[in-house]
């Protein structure tokens, strides 16, 4: 009999306390963001798809078209083509394409790059209607950034 | 004013009674029979209420008896449903034709 009433008491008390918690939450400011209208800053550690590093001095890429990333990629999603231009020692990039439909964001390409020419982008608005939209031309992205 | 004649109520009560009898014979399941019994009980209730309204010197009598009928019907329904549960558990069927251990 004593247990019956003590159960009732503790139960009732915890119910009232619970109601207090939600009451308090009701009047606290909201913490979520209305996404397409407002956006919050992405943490610098965010690992999006890869991007070429922009050399701040020469305003160009650091990539030497060695093809290490292409070889190391477990999903075969990077395509690098370099051509030797006339009058230049190094190969220059003609094509750097990422097939994002296959990419698993493992980051092996970034690790393996001898010149540290690859970095993670901050891109997260990734949605499209076609498969082709995910064949990302990374060289073009770099050109756009350079301007 | 048909709603003011005793006979119209009595005929309705008779209709309920014969509907109950017909259903009781026609239905081949316990629930169907129970439902028909409820119809018969309601016929009796209408009858009591009609006499109460038109003939009784004290109009509480018929209402009291009708309320008793309702109470009995509630008890009956509860018992029959639990009886059906028991029968179903024992015979795996609530078809009255299969439940015939007490057949002579």
């Amino acid at each position, binding site marked *: 009999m004593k247990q019956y009433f003590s159960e009732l008491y503790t139960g009732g008390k915890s119910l009232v306390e619970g109601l207090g918690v939600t009451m308090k939450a009701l009047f606290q400011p909201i913490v979520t963001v209305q996404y397409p209208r407002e956006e919050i800053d992405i943490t610098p550690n965010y690992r999006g798809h890869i991007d070429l590093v922009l050399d701040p001095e020469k305003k160009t890429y650091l990539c030497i078209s060695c093809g290490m990333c292409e070889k190391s990629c477990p999903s075969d999603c990077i395509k690098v083509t370099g051509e030797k231009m006339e009058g230049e020692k190094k190969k220059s990039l003609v094509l750097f394409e990422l097939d994002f439909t296959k990419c698993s964001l493992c980051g092996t390409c970034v690790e393996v790059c001898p010149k540290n020419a690859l970095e993670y982008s901050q891109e997260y608005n990734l949605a499209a209607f076609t498969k082709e939209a995910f064949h990302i031309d990374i060289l073009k992205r770099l050109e756009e950034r350079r301007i | *004013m*048909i*709603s003011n004649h*005793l*006979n119209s109520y009595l*005929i309705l009560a*008779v*209709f*309920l*009674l*014969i*509907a*109950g*009898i*017909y259903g009781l*014979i*026609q*239905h*081949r*399941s316990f*629930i*169907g029979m*129970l*439902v*028909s019994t*409820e*119809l018969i009980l*309601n016929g009796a209730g*209408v009858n009591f*209420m009609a006499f*109460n*309204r*038109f003939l*009784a*010197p004290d109009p*509480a*009598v018929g*209402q*009291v008896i*009708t*309320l*008793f009928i*309702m*109470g*009995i*019907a*509630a*008890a009956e329904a*509860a*018992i*029959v*449903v*639990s*009886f059906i*549960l028991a029968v*179903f*558990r*024992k015979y*795996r069927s*609530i078809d009255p034709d299969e439940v015939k251990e007490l057949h002579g």
Partner: protein
Amino acid sequence: MTFYQIVAEGLFFAFIILVILGSLITIRAKILMQTVLGLAVALLGVAGIYFYLGSMFLTLMQILIYVGAICIVLVFGIMVGYTPTEVAEKAIKDWRNKFLAISSAVTAFLLILACVLKTDWIPAVADDRNFSAAHLGEEFLYTYCLAFELISVILLIAIIGSIILARGGAGGMVTDHRAGKEVAAVQEEKGEVST
């Protein structure tokens, strides 16, 4: 005849139609659930008839007890033994059965109807009859006190009895899902052990 009376008459006929329709569904439907729903319709109609017979209290009790409790218990009983679309009633080809049903019903109807129409009913003379619920309550507690107590005892016994029946006898819960005979055997064993 005023407009009020026309409306009242119309409603009266509506209730009668409800009763007749409901009881026809009840006795003709092949699916049991529809049978019980037909019963609910008929009982609502009877509730309306009670209103015309001067007792609002009985009308409400009829809805509360019959529709709200008895019909629901019946539906519960159906849910135990049937699946929703299974045709619960065997197709009635038993002509003997049907003949018996119809003939007994018609005979009873004619006989009772003859009695009803032949009798001269003597109407109540008093005009100051009290239909109120308060008067009904007084009658319950003074004149019909014993019957009132008895019915509560009956209800109590019914509740206890139905619990015992549903639990599978005084021996306690039988949860076996084996075939009927085995369960019966188990019950017999239990009976022997307890005695």
